[in-house]
Every structure is written in C-alpha cells, then in structure tokens.
C-alpha cells in the first residue's frame, strides 16, 4: 500500500490555466506538507498543515492555495499558471513529534507551456 500518494504524476498545461494536485496519506500522520523541487533539484517547503490548520506558509504567490479537507488529505490548487511554475511538486507527511522524518510522495511533474 502506498503511504503518501499524489495525483497526477504528470501534468502538462498552458499558461493561465488553473490546476489541482491531490495528495493523500494513510500513515495516520497529523502533519502534511507541499514542497517544490526546481530544475536544479533544490527542494523548498511551500506549506505545512497540522491537523488541517496551516502552520507554515513560505513566500509563495497567492495563486497557490492549499486545501486540507481532513488530516489525511492536502490538495494544492494553482490559479493562472505561469511558465515559472514548472517544477516537481512533492507532498509529504510526518507526525508532529520532534525530528519526525518526512514521508514523501513520488511527486507531480508540472510543465507549463
């Protein structure tokens, strides 16, 4: 069984469109995250939710809006997509305990044309 699953795996879309990426975890974790990995493989946190409440919101354009309907899900909606949004987006989860490891999904490769 997949621990952290995100869909779709690949997403190709045109500038200006709105798209969503879904994420689900079955590990019973209470904290979920969205990370962005750029073309140089640098991984940067975008958002973190604990028990459906936003606790980290790094400098991310307002076009990006996370939504957590419950503890097991954290979706990412992106409005008015731009070329610079092209990247691999990773969902992750962890327990809220100190030093808890992150469990990552396999990523969604977003290509904006």
């Amino acid at each position, binding site marked *: 069984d997949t621990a*952290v699953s995100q869909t779709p795996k690949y997403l190709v879309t045109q500038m200006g469109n709105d798209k969503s990426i879904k994420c689900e975890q079955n590990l019973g974790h209470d*904290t979920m995250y969205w*990370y962005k990995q750029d073309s*140089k*493989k*640098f*991984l*940067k*946190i975008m958002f*973190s939710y*604990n028990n459906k409440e936003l*606790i*980290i919101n790094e400098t991310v354009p307002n076009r990006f809006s996370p939504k957590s309907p419950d503890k097991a899900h954290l979706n990412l909606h992106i409005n008015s997509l731009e070329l610079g949004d092209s990247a691999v987006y*990773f969902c*992750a989860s*962890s327990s*809220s305990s*100190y*030093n*808890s*490891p*992150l*469990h*990552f*999904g*396999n*990523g969604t490769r977003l290509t904006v044309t």
Partner: protein
Amino acid sequence: TQLLEQSPQFLSIQEGENLTVYCNSSSVFSSLQWYRQEPGEGPVLLVTVVTGGEVKKLKRLTFQFGDARKDSSLHITAAQPGDTGLYLCAGALSQTGANNLFFGTGTRLTVIP
C-alpha cells in the same frame, strides 16, 4: 545563498571507491536528516542526527553531525551502483513548533560498475 550548502554538487566514482559528501551551514540546527532520492521518486530518509559530534552508521554509510551542529558529513565505503542517487541533507532550526526542514542543495552521486 542557500541555508545548507552541499559539496560536491556532482560526484561520479567507480564501484568500490570511498566518498564523502559534506553539508555545511553558518546556522546551528537542532537536528539534521539525510535523505536519498532516486529518479521519479520522493526523497527517503536515511538517518537523523541530533547531538553535536554524533556518529551513526548504516551498513556502509557513516553519518556525522558536527560538534557545533552547523555541519554534517556522509561517508560511503566501497560504493555500489545501488548507492547512485541524489543525497539531500535537511536541517531543523527549532525543537518546537512546526517541523520546518531546510533542505540542502543536494549531491548527485553516480557509481559506475
């Protein structure tokens, strides 16, 4: 400038050789984690170090946390092709609050059979 700089950025070695990857910062971290990422997948945790000077071994991999908790190293003995991947260090700045990990710039290792 990134919070955590890794060196080297790329490393290509022959099977059986030894190597060391470095993770450096001017900031003090409460803990540091090492992850390995393979193509098309998310990062997977290898180890967590929390005490200055701590050394942990995972088979042929040896991890060390600097005495001042500002840096870490990963040493691989007798590298195998299966060690090929992107190695990422990630530091936590706080013991409380959000599990906000800052990832390093990454080291892409290729082990040639």
